[in-house]
């Protein structure tokens, strides 16, 4: 405690506008505030000194003036003799003025707080419409000021309205201050964090977005400069706390989510990300190559008056729709199944999966069927797709889309995806678009901002881990050209993305391979906060709305190199897994599997 105060004493600025920023509350003349007697005594001593100095100055000036006055009066006396009326009048006037002056001086002398030298300041101060704080004015005069220890206590009692006024006052004080460095420092530096009282006040009132925004920008500016202009009196975390709270208010997030995003992004990027979540991403459609070609479709839609463009060079089937006089989801071409409304980021996992004609593909969470139909068109309606979704209502959408787009090689089922290898296994490729918290698609569903908290995230993460193990077990490592699993989510949270992928790498015989989406997208994290992931995680891809102008997304591609399941040291859990999900070992050998010499060497 004592140490804390000592540091403050040593390093706080002793003069200049910074100090004045800390306004004291209105003085209560009725009740004497309990003051530290030592401090009071010091102050009193200072005051007395100052009074003496001022008195001296006054005397000097007064004596000067008297000397001048005497000279003038002598002159007047001379003139009176020559020019009676005028001289008398002048002399009287002058005398009167002198008298007035002397009276003023006397009056001023009676108030020892102000000196002639400070008449300017006096007039300026009187312009400020607020209650006078005599002690503050006092202190301003002192050239060598002790740090105002009282101000420390009263820091927390300030109101924010005054801070704006302070800004106004500060500029005037800046002008008067001799210190050039202080003048160059902008108003932002004098920004003061809101006090506890103030925060309480804000809680009761509806937030004023302008004030919040202004404060937010100031704090962001300060934090950006923090390492360069350290103000040891304020810790970074105080600013951080205020900023997070303001961001939550301004953008309507809950504290947990804002905290997570704060860790994910740098400040500037965070702002861009949050702004991007407020606006919609451009509408994109995917040409159904089973029925038409992109060029033909574009021509047909343009003939209807739709304004569109091919979607960037990484996609051969995508089109961006800028505006359209007709509803894009109701044109004859749409009904005929020539295209499907699909977000650009949803193209990426299917491109990563790269299904070949004639393969068996499993799509574990297929609703509403955009990715399933894309897989079908890449396979040219050959092979077999098993589209599954746990939600029966959403399954109707899958059925409708599959039929509308003319896909004929699909079986649509309604299982819990975790039951998968048991129902049917040995797929060449598996696509898992896992259910997630949806933090990448906030622009589509703003309720995510307030709804999602830590328990939701943990639940999602747990479910995704179960699903990814089921997905890996459903895949056949020995299939020709196959053995690939693509895991994707529409979320940017590390707990749902890199964490799950890392878990899969530990639990099963899989490795990460390049997604095939090189050239755009941010690499996945290999470390984040306290997490340390496998280095191959940089092969996964992240997409952000503010960088790529697509929904937030995450794609990871695994290659399964062995069908056996590694047995970990937690033998109880693993034995159960091994019994249920081993796809290649025949049932008879279950008990003796560990003695099977043909089994692959398990990673230790």
């Amino acid at each position: 405690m004592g140490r804390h105060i000592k540091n403050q004493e040593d390093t706080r600025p002793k003069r200049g506008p910074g100090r004045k920023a800390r306004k004291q509350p209105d003085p209560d003349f009725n009740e004497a505030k309990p003051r530290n007697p030592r401090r009071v005594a010091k102050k009193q001593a200072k005051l007395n000194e100052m009074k003496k100095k001022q008195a001296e100055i006054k005397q000097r000036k007064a004596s000067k003036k008297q000397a001048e006055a005497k000279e003038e009066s002598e002159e007047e006396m001379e003139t009176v003799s020559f020019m009676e009326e005028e001289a008398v009048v002048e002399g009287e006037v002058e005398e009167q003025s002198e008298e007035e002056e002397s009276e003023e001086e006397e009056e001023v002398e009676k108030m020892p707080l102000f000196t002639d030298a400070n008449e300017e300041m006096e007039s300026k101060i009187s312009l400020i419409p607020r209650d006078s704080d005599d002690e503050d004015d006092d202190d301003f005069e002192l050239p060598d000021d002790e740090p105002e220890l009282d101000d420390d206590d009263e820091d927390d009692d300030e109101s924010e309205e005054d801070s704006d006024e302070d800004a106004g006052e500060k500029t005037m004080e800046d002008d008067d201050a001799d210190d050039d460095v202080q003048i160059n420092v902008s108003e932002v530096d004098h920004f003061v964090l809101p006090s506890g009282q103030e925060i309480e006040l804000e809680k009761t009132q509806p937030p004023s977005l302008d004030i919040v925004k202004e404060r937010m920008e100031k704090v962001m500016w300060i934090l950006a400069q923090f390492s360069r202009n350290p103000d040891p009196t304020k810790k970074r975390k105080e600013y951080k706390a205020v900023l997070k709270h303001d961001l939550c208010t301004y953008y309507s997030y809950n504290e947990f989510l804002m905290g997570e995003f704060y860790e994910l992004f740098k400040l500037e990027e965070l702002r861009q990300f949050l702004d991007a979540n407020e606006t919609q991403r451009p509408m994109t459609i995917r040409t159904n190559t089973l029925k038409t070609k992109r060029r033909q479709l574009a021509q047909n839609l343009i003939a209807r008056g739709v304004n569109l463009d091919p979607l960037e060079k990484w996609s051969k089937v995508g089109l961006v729709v800028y505006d359209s006089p007709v509803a894009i989801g109701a044109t004859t071409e749409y009904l005929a199944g020539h295209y499907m409304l699909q977000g650009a980021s949803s193209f990426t996992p299917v491109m990563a999966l790269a299904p070949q004609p004639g393969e068996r593909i499993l799509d574990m969470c297929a609703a509403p069927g955009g990715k399933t139909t894309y897989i079908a068109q890449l396979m040219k309606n050959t092979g077999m797709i098993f589209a599954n979704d746990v939600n029966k209502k959403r399954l109707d959408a899958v059925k409708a889309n599959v039929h509308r787009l003319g896909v004929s090689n699909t079986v649509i089922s309604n299982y819990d995806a975790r039951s998968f290898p048991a129902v049917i296994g040995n797929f060449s490729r598996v696509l898992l678009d896992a259910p997630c918290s949806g933090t990448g698609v906030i622009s589509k569903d703003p309720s995510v901002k307030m709804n999602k908290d830590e328990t939701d995230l943990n639940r999602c993460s747990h479910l995704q881990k179960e699903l990814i193990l089921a997905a890996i077990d459903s895949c056949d490592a020995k299939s020709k050209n196959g053995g690939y699993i693509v895991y994707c989510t529409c979320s940017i949270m590390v707990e749902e993305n890199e964490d799950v992928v890392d878990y899969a790498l530990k639990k099963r015989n899989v490795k990460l391979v390049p997604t095939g989406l090189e050239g755009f997208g941010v690499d996945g994290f290999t470390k984040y906060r306290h997490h340390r992931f496998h280095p191959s995680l940089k092969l996964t891809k992240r997409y952000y709305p503010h960088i790529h102008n697509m929904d937030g997304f995450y794609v990871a591609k695994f290659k399964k190199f062995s069908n056996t399941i590694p047995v970990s040291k937690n033998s109880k859990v693993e034995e159960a897994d091994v019994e249920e999900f081993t796809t290649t070992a025949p049932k008879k050998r279950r008990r003796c599997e560990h003695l099977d010499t043909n089994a692959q060497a398990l990673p230790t």
Partner: protein
Amino acid sequence: MRPLTQPETKILFEKLDKYIGENIKKLIERPDGTYCFRLHRERVYYVAEEIMKCAANTSHANLASLGVCFGKFTRNRKFMMKITALDYMAPYAKYKVWVKPGSEQSFLYGNHVLKSGLGRITDGTPRNQGVIIYSMSDTPLGFGASAMSTTDCRKCAPMSIIAFHHADLGEYIRNEDLLT
């Protein structure tokens, strides 16, 4: 999921015959594999055999759809053809009706085809014949039944119905959940 019984197959083929005539053979004997019809929850699915075998793994309650749904059997064992079968009927259609661009939307909303909206019609269309309805750009829009023969069409009044509406593409939006 089970294969169709003999009576059910008969009813189905009769219905198909109305729209595509003797081209039913082309549906079953296809160069790229053997296709078959299967019944699941009163709905008829047209599916390749390999896919059908995979689908056999799924339990009754959990199977939602396989291949292409052609239609459903009603309570009285009549077969109602659904719009989802259009892709397999349109290439083999015997009798076609083309609709003018202005009346396209009207048909897609579920209305019958009127004389005022009629663009073209295949010559020699008899009455009460299953027809496939196209737009002027040769996109199949749905199917129905002709209300009058081609020769009668030329003579009739502008607001008379040429073809009854059975199914149209607009059902993908209107009746999405009742489709399959």
